[in-house]
C-alpha cells in the first residue's frame, strides 16, 4: 500500500518577487534528472492584464542530494508564446519533458482564446539542444490537434518512452457546460502512441472511468513503470464548483499491464489534502519519479498551484 510522506512545499513563486514573468502559480511540475541536480519544469504566470492570464513554462534546479534546496532558476521562460492567431498565442501550460538521444523534447499545452467559450488548447512540441535550458518549437502549429472524437481542449500532455515506443497521455475535452458565468469544459484522460514522437496514432479511448460524477474532470495522467506494472497517478475534480475544497482536485490512482486497459482504485493513491496549510483544500497535478533508490511525488496544492508545489516521498510499495 502506497503512502506518501509529505516533505512540504519546496517552491513558492512569491519568493521570487524580482522575476517579472513569475508572479503567481508554479503548476504541473515535471522533472529531468542531472548528475548533481534535478531540473523541475513548471508553468507560471505574470500579473494578469485586464483580469486575463497568460502562462509560460520555466524551470528551477534542486540539489540532487537535498530536493528542498534551490540551486538555480531559469533566466526566462523556455519558449516564447505563439504569434497572432496560433494555437499557443496565450499560454504554454503544462509541459512534459523527455530525453531523446542528446536532445531534450518538450510536449506542452498551447492556449488560444475563443469567443463562445473562454479558451481552447492543443498540444505542441519543442526540442532543446542545450540540456533543456532553452527550446525551439517544431513548427508554428500543434503536433496533436483536434479529431472527430477529441473535438477540443487537448491538454495536459505527459510524454513517456517505454521500449522503442513513445506514449503520450493527455486529456481531451468531452463537452462544454454552459453556466451563467462562464462555460466550463469537461475533459478526461486519453492516450496516443508513436514510433518517432512526431507522427501520433490516437487510441481514441477513455482510459479512466469517471468516479465522482459522469462529468468528472481528469488531468495530469502521470504514468510510472515499476516492478512490471504501469502506475498512473492523476487528478480529478467536479465539473462545476471546483474552485474550493469540496469540489476541488484530488489525486487518483490506476494501474495497468498494457497501458491501454487501466484499473482505477483511488483508495490506493496514498495522498490527500492536509489538515491545514498550502495543500489543505486541493492536491493536484501529481508527478512521480525515482531518484537514488527512492520514489517521490511532486504535486500542487490549493488553487491548483497558485502558491507553488510540494514534495512527498513514498513509503511502502506501489
Amino acid at each position, binding site marked *: 500500500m502506497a503512502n506518501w510522506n509529505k516533505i512540504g512545499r519546496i517552491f513558492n513563486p512569491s519568493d521570487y518577487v524580482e522575476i517579472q514573468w513569475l508572479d503567481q502559480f508554479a503548476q504541473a511540475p515535471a522533472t529531468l534528472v542531472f548528475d548533481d541536480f534535478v531540473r523541475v519544469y513548471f508553468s507560471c504566470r505574470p500579473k494578469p492584464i485586464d483580469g486575463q492570464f497568460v502562462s509560460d513554462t520555466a524551470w528551477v534546479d534542486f540539489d540532487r542530494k537535498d530536493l528542498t534546496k534551490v540551486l538555480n532558476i531559469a533566466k526566462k521562460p523556455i519558449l516564447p508564446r*505563439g*504569434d*497572432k*492567431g*496560433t*494555437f499557443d*498565442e*496565450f499560454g504554454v501550460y503544462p509541459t512534459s519533458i523527455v530525453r531523446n538521444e542528446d536532445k531534450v523534447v518538450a510536449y506542452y499545452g498551447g492556449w*488560444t*482564446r*475563443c*469567443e*463562445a*467559450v473562454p479558451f*481552447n488548447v*492543443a498540444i505542441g*512540441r519543442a526540442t532543446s539542444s542545450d540540456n533543456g535550458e532553452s527550446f525551439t518549437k*517544431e*513548427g*508554428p*502549429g*500543434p*503536433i496533436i*490537434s*483536434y*479529431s*472527430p*472524437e*477529441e*473535438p*477540443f*481542449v487537448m491538454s495536459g500532455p505527459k510524454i513517456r518512452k517505454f521500449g522503442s515506443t513513445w506514449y503520450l497521455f493527455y486529456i481531451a*475535452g468531452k*463537452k*462544454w457546460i*454552459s453556466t451563467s458565468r462562464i*462555460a466550463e*469544459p469537461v475533459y478526461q484522460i486519453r492516450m496516443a502512441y508513436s514510433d518517432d514522437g*512526431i507522427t501520433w496514432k490516437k487510441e481514441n479511448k477513455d482510459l479512466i472511468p469517471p468516479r465522482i460524477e459522469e462529468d468528472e474532470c481528469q488531468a495530469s495522467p502521470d504514468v510510472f513503470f515499476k516492478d512490471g506494472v504501469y502506475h498512473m497517478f492523476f487528478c480529478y475534480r467536479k465539473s462545476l464548483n471546483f474552485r474550493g475544497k469540496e469540489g476541488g482536485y484530488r489525486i487518483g490512482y490506476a494501474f495497468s499491464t498494457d497501458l491501454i486497459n487501466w484499473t482505477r482504485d483511488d483508495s490506493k493513491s496514498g495522498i490527500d489534502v492536509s489538515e491545514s496549510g498550502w495543500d489543505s483544500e486541493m492536491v493536484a497535478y501529481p508527478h512521480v519519479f525515482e531518484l537514488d533508490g527512492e520514489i517521490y511525488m511532486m504535486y500542487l496544492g490549493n488553487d491548483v498551484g497558485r502558491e507553488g508545489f510540494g514534495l512527498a516521498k513514498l513509503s511502502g510499495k506501489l
Partner: protein
Amino acid sequence: MVNWKKYGKIFDPTQLKVFSYCNEFAQSPQVLKIDNGFRIYYSTREIDETGKFLSHIAFVDFNKDFSKIIGKSEKPVIPLGGLGTFDEHGIFPINPLKVESEVYAYTCGWSRRKSVSVETSTGLAISKDGGKTFLKTGQGPIFSSSLNEPFLVGDSFVKKFNNKFHMWYIYGVRWLENSQEEPARVYKIAHATSDDGMVWDRNGETCIPDKIGENECQALPSVEYHNDQYHMVFCYRHAMGFRKDPSKGYRLGYALSDDGIHWERNDDFGGIDIPNGEWDRDMRCYPHLFSHEGELILLYNGNEFGKYGFGLAKLEN
C-alpha cells in the same frame, strides 16, 4: 481556341428563400448529380443575436439544363456544432462526394476567436439518403491544424482519381497585423491524399505560385479531369482592402496539370475571369468545377462574396 462561355446568374437567394431566417448569400455552390438533374449545395447566412453571421448549408435541385429549380432543402442540411466545437459558428463551404452508396460531405467549420476573427477546420459528415441529410463522423474535425499548417485549414475539395482520394484545401500561413483593419489572414492552396477519405497524408507544399505577392490569399480550389489534363479553378485576392475595393477583391484563377501534383498557373485560360455582367463585375469567387457528359462546367459567385447568388459557365472548345 478554348472559351469559357458565361450563362449568367442562375440562382438568387433573395428571390428564393430556402429558410425564413436567411435572407441573403448563396456562397460556394457545389454539385451532386441526382437522377433528374443536379443538387447544388451552398452556404447561406443567418444574423445571430450579436449581429454576426452564422453560415448554414442549404441546397436547391436543378433540372438537367439548369433552367428550372425542381426542389430545395427545408432545413439546414447539417446542423452547426455544439458549444466550443470547430463548426459552432458556421459551415462554409461544403463539398459533396459520392462514395459508393453514400455521400460524403467535407465541411469547413468556423469558430470565432478573440485575438483574430476566426479559426476553421475540415469536418466530415455522411449521408445515407442521397444527400438530403447528413450525420457528422464526430464532434471534432477530420483535418485540422498541424505543425506547419498552423491555422485556418479549410475549403477542402475531395475527388477520387486512380483509386485514391485527393484533397485540395487551404491553410493559413500568417495573420497580418495592421492599424487600419482587424488582423488579416493569408492562406494558400495545398494537397493531401488518402486511401479511405478519412485519414489524410499532407504533402506539405503549396500547389499554386503567387501572382500578386506573398500575401496573396488563395481559396476554394476545385479540380476536374478533362481532355487529358487536370484543371483547377480557384479564387485569389489581396490580403487587405478586398471587401470594399474592387481592384483588391476576389478573381478567378486557373491552373493546369498533367499529373494533378505539379500545376502550371494560367489565369487567362479561356477568359475565365472576364465578367459576365453587372452581377459579377466587381468580384468573381468561390468556383466549383465538374464535368457532365463530356462538358466542363463551372459554378461561381459574383459581387459581395455571393450575397446575391451564383452563376454558370461552360468550356467551349
